[in-house]
């Protein structure tokens, strides 16, 4: 039987970031298990936006810290990209303007320098072809980080740091006794002994692994569409959200343009919807008609793993002192990964996270009815 010190189940952004901060602390014997290839799940399918313009203390604080980590990662990891071009929330109704005015004040009180822009100021930042925008919320600390570049850069960096990456390796279950995980069951029946910790960071698949240990995690799969075009010279710097419809557009440094839109579909329906494509393109092309001259390359579906309060679960799995879980990011896992990876490292090495806000992400909050509140969600 093979032996590992730390087993990370899931080769997405959360697992890779946890591996990175653990390795930086000198932890040896870190093994990442991924059932397909790194970034196959929600990481490789997300738009790569990073922002702290949220509406809850937990989200704003964690993301403020996460952005600090993104900026450091950019220096530490060759090939990793984080471009602080901001987020621009286009607001088309008086109600939305009022709500975001209050949000900006709240975000400012937590040290995030978002600000309201008048329609005129929006036009100076990003020329719009349609004039129904009343105002916008601008988050200058937000940015974009190509998930493809992230995965490749992290793979290389982790290998340099001595982290073992096992792709196409499926973790079927976790064996535990005496309140501790003892081993992983891998592929058909291989058993891998775990001496220290297990991190469950398997996105929507975290639910099955936890259930196997008798713990029910309240996450639901929520399929979201995204499209990418061919590469074009830069035409748009910030990630732009049309708040009223939940549509957005971002152009990465590579030149690729991604366009998303809220388009609810049933939990297990991953078929591609033309309705989404039409909505996304119709709405965003009203503001940026350039999009219509781009060549569409691909449309795909990825999962948000959504909790009842749209906040993640970052906790020790109840009843298992050496099993940690980080899931339920509700569409924000990639942007949070740098702070979550660091917090997981603190939880494993010091027994507690560094930030008080991380403590609010306990699983028990759902049983206790102490749900967190968040309204700044789109896509």
């Amino acid at each position, binding site marked *: 039987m093979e032996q590992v010190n730390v087993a990370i189940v899931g080769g997405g952004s959360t697992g890779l970031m946890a591996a990175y901060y653990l390795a930086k602390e000198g932890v040896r014997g870190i093994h990442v298990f991924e059932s397909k290839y790194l970034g196959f799940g929600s990481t490789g399918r997300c738009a790569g936006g990073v922002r702290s313009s949220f509406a809850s203390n937990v989200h704003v604080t964690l993301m403020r810290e996460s952005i600090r980590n993104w900026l450091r990662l950019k220096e530490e990891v060759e090939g990793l990209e984080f471009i602080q071009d901001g987020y621009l929330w286009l607001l088309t109704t008086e109600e939305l303007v009022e709500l975001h005015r209050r949000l900006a004040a709240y975000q400012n009180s937590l040290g995030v320098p978002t600000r309201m822009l008048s329609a005129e100021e929006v036009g100076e930042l990003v020329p719009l072809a349609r004039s129904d925008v009343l105002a916008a919320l601008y988050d200058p600390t937000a940015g974009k980080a190509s998930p493809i570049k992230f995965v490749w850069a992290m793979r290389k960096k982790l290998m340099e740091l001595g982290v073992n990456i096992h792709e196409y390796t499926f973790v079927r279950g976790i064996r535990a006794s005496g309140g501790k995980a003892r081993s992983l069951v891998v592929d058909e029946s291989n058993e891998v002994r775990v001496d220290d910790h297990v991190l469950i960071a398997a996105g929507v698949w975290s639910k099955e692994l936890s259930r196997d240990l008798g713990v029910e995690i309240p996450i639901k799969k929520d399929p979201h569409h995204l499209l990418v075009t*061919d590469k*074009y*010279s830069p*035409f748009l710097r910030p990630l732009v959200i049309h708040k009223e419809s939940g549509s957005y557009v971002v152009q990465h440094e590579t030149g690729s343009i991604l366009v998303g839109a809220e388009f609810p579909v049933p939990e297990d329906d991953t078929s591609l919807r033309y309705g989404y494509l039409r909505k996304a393109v119709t709405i965003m092309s009203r503001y940026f008609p350039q*999009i219509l*001259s781009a060549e569409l390359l691909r*449309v795909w579906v990825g999962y948000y793993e959504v909790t009842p309060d749209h906040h993640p679960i970052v906790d020790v799995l109840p009843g298992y002192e050496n099993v940690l879980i980080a899931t339920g990011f509700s569409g924000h896992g990639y942007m949070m990964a740098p702070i979550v990876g660091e917090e997981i490292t603190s939880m494993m090495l010091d027994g507690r996270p560094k930030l008080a806000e991380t403590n609010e992400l306990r699983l028990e909050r759902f049983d206790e009815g102490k749900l967190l509140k968040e309204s700044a969600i789109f896509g």
Partner: protein
Amino acid sequence: MIVNPDLRIYTHPILEFKRGGEVTVFFEGKPFRAFEGEALAAAIYASGVNVFRISPVRGRPRGVFCMVGKCGSCMVRVDGVPMRSCVTSVRHDMKVERVSGLPDLSRYGRDVAREELDVDVLIIGGGPAGMASAEVLCGTDLETVLIDDQIRLGGQLIKQTHIFFGSRELFAGRRGFEIADDYNKRLSKCSNLKIITGTTVVGVFKEGVLAVGDNVLYLVRPKYVVVAAGAFENHLVFDNNDLPGVMGAGGAQTLMNVWGVKPGSEVLVIGSGNVGLIISYQLLQAGVNVKAVVEALPRIGGWFVHAAKIRRYGIPILTRHTILSVKGSERVEEAVIASVDENWNVVPGTEKAIKTDTVLLAVGLTPNTELLRQFGVAMKYIPDLGGLVPLRTRYMETSVENVFIAGDIAAIEEATTAFIEGWIAGYSILIKAYGEREDFIESREKYLRMLQEYRSAPVSEKVRRGWQLSLIS
């Protein structure tokens, strides 16, 4: 008066190029002569333009490569809009610019009409396989739409000038472009068939199949689908392999036989399969000097008849040789080849420089299967069939009910087998739509026998082997 070099072919032993009226297009501000109906890439290439774009990351010059809209190497800006010039028709007074780095988006949107089509059958691809399926369905009351991404219907047939052999039913004695012409005429008379060219099927959605034309978006909701999307040309790794003048053999064939434009004045052909041998002969017919055919294997890959023909003209076929590099600033000026040993290693000291302005790659094809994967079709990697291919029943149905395949998308073969498979797929749809009628079953059995017979030749050994691995019941 416009004076430019002119690579157009005006006299040809087989082909007659019917050019439209003379027009003027502007490339980088300079006027160029072009003819109505010509592909833009062919028109400016004929006048000596080699560099169509500058690559975005390393700033390397790029020219035409595939000539069928698959590679993006010939992208230019036409009146401000980035376009693949090989699948764009010329228009008088077009302003064409080289794309340097990433292309700019047009600042203006475009008006796009939407059309929704509820049909019985959708055929994707208008090459031999797709046309054959359409032929079977023609005259029935199954409403059928055939969509093809090229300007002209016929797939690779439109550039094939060699004579088919075999039986009369399989077009013996006829040339590919003549067969395509016949089909064009016949299919245009089918009242239940709508043919849409210049339109690319881009995606399979729950609501229907999406196809994009210049100014129309089609959403097609078919009961049955034949995916006959063919294959794309393989590239080869060597130094400077992106230099203008390095071209796919199929791309060169399109330039030469469809648009009547010589791909260069001196050509080195890489690969001695049938494509490499046939293109060499066609180059001679177009008055182009063929320096040699280079083949890494110890034997010639294609048929003896084709090899004998070019040998008669004194073209050396260099087996156990490979290409190492090409050199040149804006276009190939020289190619370096060398011998390889039985382990494919270059034998030191055998390097040889050959002066040439064009290198054509005839190194195989890969099935164009992206759409099948979107349909959710079960796939398998079978190198004998060309790589990742769909599993299929002997009646050409995939693992997804009512989704059929035919031609190179199923296995890299040739036009004849593509036709037969297209007929089989067509009859399979008739049988599904109208029940097990005896005449349909009889016809389908006839074509199944024909396919088996055709594949019994020794050259089809690989396909026979691969086919067994791809069959489902």
